């Protein structure tokens, strides 16, 4: 039987001996290899690559010659051309935009209160990328649409942004035979027919499925009422530089204590130490440990014994307030019993009342509205002027009328993360899903630092802990959407490989990962891999993605000099320090 010759065409190429192409998932172009006879030159760089056999034809428009080589063998001199499918163009272009911005409580900024609406579905994000890639005919309907992945594209290559989005949601970018781009779910696609196959093989290649998949959130944020103690600067010695000590332990503490010092002059302190006293006594207050961290569950319950576990603290609370139309964390607040120097003898309050919540913040007398800075790294609150308390009974209405100076009883309400007391590992919320696999595989962890669990206590009027508010429900819901996507990769599937005679127009999809066409003097074949990749078809998808990501990282590094990086970081609204009172 005479088998018709398989043909391939590319503008400017003559004497084609054979040709093959393997279409693979992803944003990198597949390469066709053309073996041709020697010819004067190959003048065309870009054109449509066509395969033809027995009346069937498949075309790959907009292909580009990648490179050529030649060799001399038993058949004489042959040339080989490598031609890339039209995805070669996807290395170029840009996309910019920040979407699905998460507020300080991890909720989405969706345009409430006249703010910018950043919420975009995954399908909308994919469409943005595809349009930036120059695509007009695409299908993103398979992309799971529940998650709201945060993206910050700043002159990103759109194809790379799309691939990253698809990776996150368990999908692949697929260039179909009809020249249409589709986003397909990994593992979901058409079945292969074995009836007409020249070869058909089912393989045993179960996915390396972990026993569990877990989304690991960013470091959890706890709002804590940190009790503060008055500390002062001690003189430097040979053994130690300037150090902080509780004020009663300072070497220069007056013999009669601090009760009769003439704040702010401290003339009761020796002249050589007076400047240190003026700089620090009743101005430096340090977080006192142990401290209870509501909502934290450590080795000792919610108790944290060491300062290192909570440093650096934040200059904000977990509690929210509307700022510029959108919810943002309140600045850290200091409250407590202190003498407001109103030429009376009463302190700010008679008891350590809780700091006010949003709404009545200005009405609370215990709220300390004096200038201060928070030394987050050392857990210090440093006031611009001495803050002290009247310890005389007249402060609470008893007889007499005078002020006897003592350290203020202050509380800093601020957020912090917590580290494990032994390993110093940061406490993170982990949302785990059991896969059902019990082969002893460990858990696969997916880092999602943009998701942050928060815990914020509420108190009664007598300062008893009432409840701990949390955004755990919202965080879990978002984490679940990521888990759904990740779990797609571990569907139980039987890898298959089939080879058909002729050119069979089988579309690649989420399950069919490779479609390979070969034409030559012996005819034409179509080879397909489902839940599998052809060994000599192309680099494995994961390897291609690794290379793509590496290339993108290198490009980004080249684009961003250290100076530009610093400038960008400084100007980013996400890195700007928030102003405090």
């Amino acid at each position, binding site marked *: 039987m005479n088998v018709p010759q398989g043909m391939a065409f590319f503008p400017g190429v003559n004497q084609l001996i054979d040709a093959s192409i393997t279409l693979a998932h992803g944003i990198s172009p597949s390469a066709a290899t053309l073996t041709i006879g020697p010819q004067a030159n190959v003048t065309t760089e870009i054109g449509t690559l066509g395969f033809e056999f027995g009346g069937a034809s498949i075309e790959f428009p907009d292909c580009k010659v990648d490179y050529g080589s030649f060799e001399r063998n038993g058949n004489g001199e042959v040339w080989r051309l490598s031609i890339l499918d039209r995805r070669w163009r996807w290395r170029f272009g840009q996309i910019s935009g920040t979407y699905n911005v998460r507020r300080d409580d991890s909720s989405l900024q969706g345009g409430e209160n006249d703010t910018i609406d950043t919420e975009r579905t995954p399908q909308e994000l994919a469409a943005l990328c595809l349009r930036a890639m120059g695509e007009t005919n695409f299908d993103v309907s398979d992309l799971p649409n529940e998650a709201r992945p945060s993206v910050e594209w700043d002159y990103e290559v759109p194809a790379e942004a799309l691939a990253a989005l698809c990776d996150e949601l368990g999908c692949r970018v697929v260039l179909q035979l009809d020249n249409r781009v589709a986003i397909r779910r990994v593992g979901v696609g058409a079945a292969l027919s074995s009836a007409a196959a020249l070869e058909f093989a089912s393989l045993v290649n179960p996915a390396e499925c972990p026993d569990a998949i877990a989304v690991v959130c960013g470091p959890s944020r706890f709002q804590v009422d940190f009790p503060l103690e008055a500390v002062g600067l001690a003189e430097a010695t040979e053994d130690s530089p300037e150090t902080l000590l509780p004020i009663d332990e300072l070497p220069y503490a007056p013999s009669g204590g601090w009760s009769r010092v*003439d704040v*702010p002059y401290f003339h009761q302190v020796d002249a050589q130490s007076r400047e240190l006293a003026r700089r620090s006594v009743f101005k430096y207050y340090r977080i006192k440990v142990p401290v209870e961290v509501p909502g934290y569950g450590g080795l000792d319950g919610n108790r944290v014994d060491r300062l290192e576990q909570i440093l650096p603290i934040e200059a904000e609370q977990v509690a929210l307030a509307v700022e510029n139309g959108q919810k943002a964390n309140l600045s850290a607040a200091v409250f407590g019993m202190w003498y407001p120097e109103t030429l009376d003898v009463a302190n700010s309050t008679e008891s350590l009342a809780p700091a006010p919540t949003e709404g009545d913040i200005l009405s609370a007398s215990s709220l300390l509205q004096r200038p201060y800075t928070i030394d987050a790294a050392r857990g210090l609150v440093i006031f611009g002027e001495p803050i002290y308390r009247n310890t005389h009974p007249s402060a609470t209405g008893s007889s007499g009328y005078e002020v006897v100076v003592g350290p203020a009883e202050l509380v800093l309400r601020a957020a912090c993360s917590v580290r494990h007391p032994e390993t110093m590992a940061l406490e993170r919320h982990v949302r785990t899903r059991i896969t059902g696999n019990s082969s002893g595989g460990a858990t696969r962890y997916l880092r999602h630092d943009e998701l942050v669990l928060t815990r914020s206590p509420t108190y009664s009027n007598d300062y008893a802990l009432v409840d701990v508010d949390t955004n755990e429900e919202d965080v879990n819901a978002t984490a679940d959407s990521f888990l759904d996507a990740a779990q797609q990769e571990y569907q139980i599937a039987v890898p298959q490989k089939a080879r058909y005679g002729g050119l069979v127009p089988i579309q690649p999809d989420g399950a069919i990962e490779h479609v390979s066409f070969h034409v030559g003097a012996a005819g034409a074949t179509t080879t397909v891999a489902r839940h599998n990749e052809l060994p000599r078809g192309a680099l494995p998808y994961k390897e291609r993605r690794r290379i793509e990501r590496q290339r993108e990282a290198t490009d980004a590094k080249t684009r961003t000099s250290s100076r530009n990086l610093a400038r960008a970081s400084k100007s980013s609204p996400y890195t700007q320090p928030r102003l405090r009172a």
Partner: protein
Amino acid sequence: MSAASTSGQALAKFPFKNIHSQKVPAFGVVEIAGVLVEDGVAFLTCTRPGTTLGTEFAVNGPSQVQPDEKGICYRQGDLSVAYDSGNPQAGQGWGPRANQWTLSKGYPSIITAHGIRNQANKILHGALVPLAGALGVAAANLPAISGGQPGTQTVTLHVWDGTSCVAATPTTTFTGYNMSTSVIEAGRLTPFVRENGLWVAVAGGSDSNQKLVKTTTSHASGAAELVNVWDGTPGSEAESNPLEELEAMNRTSVDIDADKFCLATRIGGNWYIEPWEC
């Protein structure tokens, strides 16, 4: 100097040293006695107001200050200040009183009261102002200025008790200065003002810018002549004793005969007469 913030007002705090044998109570009134420099720091030295009227006062801060110890005081602004008794009301003048740390009503005013801050502990709220005036009675005649040298005399401080002016208790004195050309008689209640660090009598007498005089010679229009000052109760006036004479100008259009009663008026340091009888 540091500042305290009260009701939006920044109050300057001045360091001082208590040089009195008693502790200064919170918000007590202190008299500034001088200055002391220790370790390069200038302290006001403060004491309890005494029987010699001081000129500069301050108010202690909210803490007691033990003898020979240092504290902070206020020297201006709206303050809390301890008072001794009564019911301070807005606009009243309250001032330091000898041998006590508290203000007393009617004493030379350094505080214009706004009202009571704490009645149980006798703390008023008021504006601290410099001591600018005092009422006094010279123990003996306060001589007139002579050759540019003012007359001086010990003056007993008098205070307003709400009805009349009475001698301060305990007796408090100060040195009064007379810059006028008229003698201030002993026993005459005289206002004094603080000028160049001196207590200067306001004019020379109770009617110091107008006097009853009698011409001693014919006083032609446009001429200046010596006239004798008369004083005493109405209807029983007599020539002043010792005799006080003025050189007065007749700027009227008429000649005034000798021995006629006239009203002498001082304008810009010059005396002018106008006849009551011609």
